[in-house]
């Protein structure tokens, strides 16, 4: 074999492998875990607890209906509804609270033992990550108390925001309220027109299309700039905090970095 020809060939092969097989370059481990919340919710103890809450609710419903009949004013109705809502929440907390606590402790323990920095909902993971559903289910089902780790989770690459709090930033809230009012007016108008054209499906279709177009156009005008601004703010805060991604708070089960207040400040 001609060694002078062989060396460039091997170099080419190495570079080709470098280009076309990047799999080998990735880190072996990830500190992102995920859990299938539906599977945890389907565990027998959760199902029993849910049934118990549902039974309690049906009892409350009949009592609620009978008390509402004797209500004389809207204030009475509101007071009764509030009281029943509170009773239901108390029962829910009483029955499901300990189970949620146990599941949360199990998640923390598994995360710690597997050196995971953040646990997210399975639904947002497209590929990779560590599935801890079974480990958590085993701990929840197991005997004795589940002891959560004393250490807090390590810093994660994933941050999160509470979108409901971001929506309370005055200018965003104002824009949302304005849009909701506009949408309500448009809907009422479209409805009136559609009722007037009830014997003309083609005209109804045209009214509906015009309604959708108006709504979409106004959404772009009133909300899109703020959505873009919020996304930019989140991206900048993420970079400052060395976070790779930002997800919604509801998708994070454990760990992660909360950047909600930073984003709120950036938007003010």
């Amino acid at each position, binding site marked *: 074999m001609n060694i002078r020809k062989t060396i460039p060939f091997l170099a080419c092969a190495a570079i080709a492998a470098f280009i076309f097989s990047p799999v080998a370059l990735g880190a072996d481990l990830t500190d992102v875990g995920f859990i299938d919340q539906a599977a945890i919710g389907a565990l027998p103890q959760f199902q029993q607890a849910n049934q118990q809450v549902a039974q309690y609710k049906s009892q409350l419903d009949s009592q609620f209906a009978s008390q509402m009949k004797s209500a004389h004013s809207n204030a009475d109705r509101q007071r009764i509804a509030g009281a029943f809502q509170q009773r239901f929440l108390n029962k829910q907390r009483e029955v499901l609270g300990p189970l949620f606590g146990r599941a949360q402790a199990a998640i923390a323990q598994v995360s710690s033992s597997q050196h995971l920095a953040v646990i997210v909902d399975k639904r947002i993971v497209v590929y990779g990550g560590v599935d801890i559903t079974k480990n958590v289910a085993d701990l929840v089902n197991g005997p004795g108390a589940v002891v959560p780790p004393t250490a807090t989770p390590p810093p994660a690459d994933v941050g999160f925001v509470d979108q409901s709090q971001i929506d309370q930033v005055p200018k965003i809230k104002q824009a949302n309220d304005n849009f909701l009012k506009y949408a309500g007016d448009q809907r009422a108008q479209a409805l009136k027109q559609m009722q007037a054209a009830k014997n003309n499906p083609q005209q109804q279709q045209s009214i509906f299309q015009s309604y959708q177009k108006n709504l979409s156009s106004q959404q772009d005008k009133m909300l899109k700039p703020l959505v873009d601004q919020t996304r930019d703010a989140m991206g900048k805060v993420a970079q400052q905090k060395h976070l*790779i991604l930002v997800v919604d708070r509801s998708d994070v089960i454990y760990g992660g970095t909360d950047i909600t207040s930073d984003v709120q400040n950036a938007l003010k």
Partner: protein
Amino acid sequence: MRSSKLALLTLAALAIAGCAHQPRPDDPNVRGIGYVRVDEVLKKHPLYSHLSQLQDAIDALGLKSLGPSAVPRTQAQIAQQTRELNRELLQAQGRANAILHQKQQDYQQREQAAIRAAVAASGAGTNGTQPVQQMQNVSAQQAQQVTLQANADFQAYQRGVIAQDNAAVQQLQQQLNARVDQAYRQRATQLQEQESQLSLELSQQDASRRLDLRMKLNNLAMADAQRKQYRDQLASIDQQEAAVVDARRKSDQQTLQAYLNQLRTQTQKQLATQAQKIHEQTRAKLAERRNEVSQQVASQMQGLQPAAIPSNLPAATRDKLAQIDKQYKSQFQADAQKTIQQYQQTKTDLDAQYASLQGADGAASGAAGKQLSDLQRQRDDLYNKMVEQIKRDAGQVAAKRGLQVVFMNIEAAGGGIDLTNDVEKDIESLHQ
């Protein structure tokens, strides 16, 4: 040797260029993490237009269902409201009859008192009882007038009822046509969904072959003949899939046409049966009204009786009695007319409510709610299938790119690798 150096330099340049455009998975700003914006990829999916159609149909139904008159009531609610309307109608009839009866008695007594007073004042040698008695004989002419008026009223009623009958048949026809249209569209959507599913399955079956061919085509250093061969193979896969889907589509069109014919035949039969029932109801209504009119005529006759003035009275007294008779008769008729108008107004309102209820009945039997939930289910199924396909594709891309974890539905990115474009291209090419 020169060619080897050239190849080496080219590959190195490519590698550097590639690295310059796309960060590596172990880049500090990536750390093995990628993401895909599924909502954007969905818009490029071949089935996106179908998904949008379903969503539009759901939104349109949702908007319609916000209207108070379009909310489908349950059969029990309709029955309850019909009973209430019947009760109101009976009460209105009872009230009107009682008032008319009372007025009739009042006017009769007042007229008799006035006649007695007039006869006594004239000094005709009687206390007035006899003339009153005589005047209570029915005048044939008056009876004829009353009958003529009653007949005119009945004919007006008959015209109204027949117009209602025609409107009901027309409305029925519209409802049945709407049902045919709805059933046809549901079947069409179902078949379209199956076609989409077939298309999806075929593309999934061929996905690995297609991906393999595309990867091969990405190789820049390939002979033209070889490239053509791969392209032909890709085109062949596309053609085979298209042929299968086209065959299914043609077959579905035939099925749909047969289904439409069947629906139309059924509708004609239903229309004939229902129209017959409506006509029977109309005839029954007219018969009932005829009885009602007869009773009214009889009642009015009684009220109109004191008209024949005894001829043995002095002329001045007879004139006076005729004047009294005319005065009270016209007062009673005017007063009674008001009561009858009030009753007619109430009846018209109730008729409108009946008609509205019948419309709601049609809407309820049309099962708009079921249609909405069916559409929602179809939309969710399709959406989930499309998202699953996107996730699978994103997973393949992620594996090739050496990523450790890939997210979807993120709020923002401070780093990581955005796979959206790559996945979009793959998804788009599925049906090219």
